[in-house]
């Protein structure tokens, strides 16, 4: 996922330029078109990668390219790089053994979709928690500068802790604890780990967004005797949308990646992370399945990004932020 929405920070400093650009301030149709164009570009990208894959497999050296003993390009054998058609056909093959077997009619595609849906659910829970926590932290940091100075270093520091180290800890803390009458489930640990990754961009982006209204806007609201709440609802939140949307996009991607990594490191079954491991253990038999699972994970990430885009389009009105002069 790339961040295409750059906050309109420079707009305030260049009034004449922003005025000239202003009449073409995007309407909803233009924004939808822009997103469709982007989707088209992503599709073209996929096709190009596919072409490169097949081209390298056809013309590349069988043993890959090795420089000073280190292999920099992969082998082109069928085991290392199956044909795209083989990968595609593998989706339709019946599932053999493994951890996910429900019946003889189950295909690899079924398994991948099933696993993706599980992972999606956990990632969504992690995303929700992460966004809520990030949002609250941002509000806190905006309300009191002391909090920003005290909290921000820890917010940044939190992301330097390796996830692999964190996973067993969270699992251990969760075990046996209860949420009200609810027993702690293993998937909750996974969602918490995903939230741990997802909260960061939201906290940072929202903090910047809430601070984005200019001094004139702040003065005006103060002159209008608008309190903290009214200023938040009518000025700060709308102004922070251009900062929030890219933050959410990063958070969605982070939640998916976090969930997959956490699945693997906590040993939680049923998800796509687990499926990737299972298939790679069977890779000697059928290497193309690993790629099927990886494709599933990639589609999941794209779907999460697309969901944020829908949210983004719903808020098109606020795109320019508080850049008025």
């Amino acid at each position, binding site marked *: 996922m790339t961040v295409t929405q750059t906050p309109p920070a420079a707009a305030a400093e260049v009034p004449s330029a922003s005025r000239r650009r202003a009449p073409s301030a995007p309407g909803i149709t233009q924004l939808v078109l822009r997103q469709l164009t982007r989707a088209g570009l992503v599709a073209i990208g996929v096709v190009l990668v596919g072409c490169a894959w097949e081209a390298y497999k056809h013309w590349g050296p069988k043993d890959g390219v090795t420089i000073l003993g280190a292999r920099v390009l992969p082998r082109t054998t069928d085991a290392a790089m199956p044909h795209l058609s083989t990968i595609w056909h593998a989706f339709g093959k019946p599932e053999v053994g493994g951890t996910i077997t429900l019946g003889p009619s189950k295909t690899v595609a079924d398994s991948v979709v099933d696993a993706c849906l599980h992972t999606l659910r956990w990632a969504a829970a992690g995303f929700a928690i992460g966004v809520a926590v990030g949002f609250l932290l941002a509000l806190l940091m905006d309300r009191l500068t002391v909090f920003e100075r005290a909290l921000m270093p820890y917010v940044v520091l939190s992301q330097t802790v390796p996830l692999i180290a964190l996973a067993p800890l969270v699992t251990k803390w969760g075990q046996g604890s209860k949420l009200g009458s609810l027993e702690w489930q293993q998937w909750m640990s996974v969602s918490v780990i995903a939230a741990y990754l997802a909260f960061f961009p939201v906290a940072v982006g929202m903090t910047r967004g809430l601070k984005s209204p200019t001094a004139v806007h702040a003065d005006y609201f103060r002159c209008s005797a608008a309190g903290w709440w009214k200023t938040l609802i009518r000025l700060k939140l709308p102004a922070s949308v251009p900062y929030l949307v890219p933050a959410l996009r990063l958070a969605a991607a982070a939640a998916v990646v976090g969930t997959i990594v956490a699945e693997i490191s906590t040993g939680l079954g049923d998800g796509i992370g687990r499926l990737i491991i299972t298939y790679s253990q069977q890779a000697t038999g059928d290497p193309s399945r690993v790629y099927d699972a990886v494709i599933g994970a990639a589609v999941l990430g794209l779907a999460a990004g697309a969901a944020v885009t829908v949210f983004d389009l719903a808020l098109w009105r*606020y795109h320019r932020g508080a850049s008025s002069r």
Partner: protein
Amino acid sequence: MSEPVPPAVELRGVNKTFTVKRGSVDALQDVDLRIERGEFVSLIGPSGCGKSTLLRIIADLLAPTSGDVWVNGKPARRARLDQDYGIAFQQAGLLDWRTVQANVELPLELHGVGRAQRRARAQELLELVGLADFGTHRPPQLSGGMQQRVAIARALAESPALLLMDEPFGALDEMTRERMQNELVRIAGETGAAVVFVTHSIPEAVFLSQRVVVMSPRPGRISEVVEVPLGARTDDTREAPAFYAAITQVREALRGRPVPEAVQVGAAVDAALRDKASGAL
């Protein structure tokens, strides 16, 4: 017997000292000023003379270090909370995600006025500033002058008895500026609001005001108040000999008193004051 109507603004012995890195800077010293209801008064002076600071003190965006500030017969803070004044800044400061109409409605919305009433009032105000057809536009689609008119309409939304304006036409080109001045004179006349207008354009101050308050820097204080007896303003006023006479008078008042050597503190403090003053804009 009704009580005597309180003046729009009354300042008594107002001082403002900013604390800077090296010591402190007197931004305002012993300012006394009384502005009657319906009166149009301009504050003029070089950068750093504290005219914006003074306006911000009246608006209760800044607290004076000492002295009394009364707006509509109330302490400044009370007047701000009661919305006794409307305000417009050099930047229009509109909210881009709202339509022009919704921008004008904003103060009414903030103070719980009903939807139908809001809409009617906003329409009325947009007509007053000549933008009746632009209600559904968004601010970025308007020119700078039009945006400033929306800001003025917004400032007038709650029919304040006092309008505070901090160089509202400062960023406009000369033609637009003169047109906006004509509009403002008309609007002030129609609404009967008192106006405190900060500017550094001498002709602008003279054309608009009944009194021009000339300020001098370091420390910021009122050096002279020039009466401008020009009667009703029209485009012809700009050509009238009396207009030029008043301009000369204000210019002389501005040059009048050379800054005494003794008050000239170090260049660093000087720069700090300017920073503070421009930051306060």
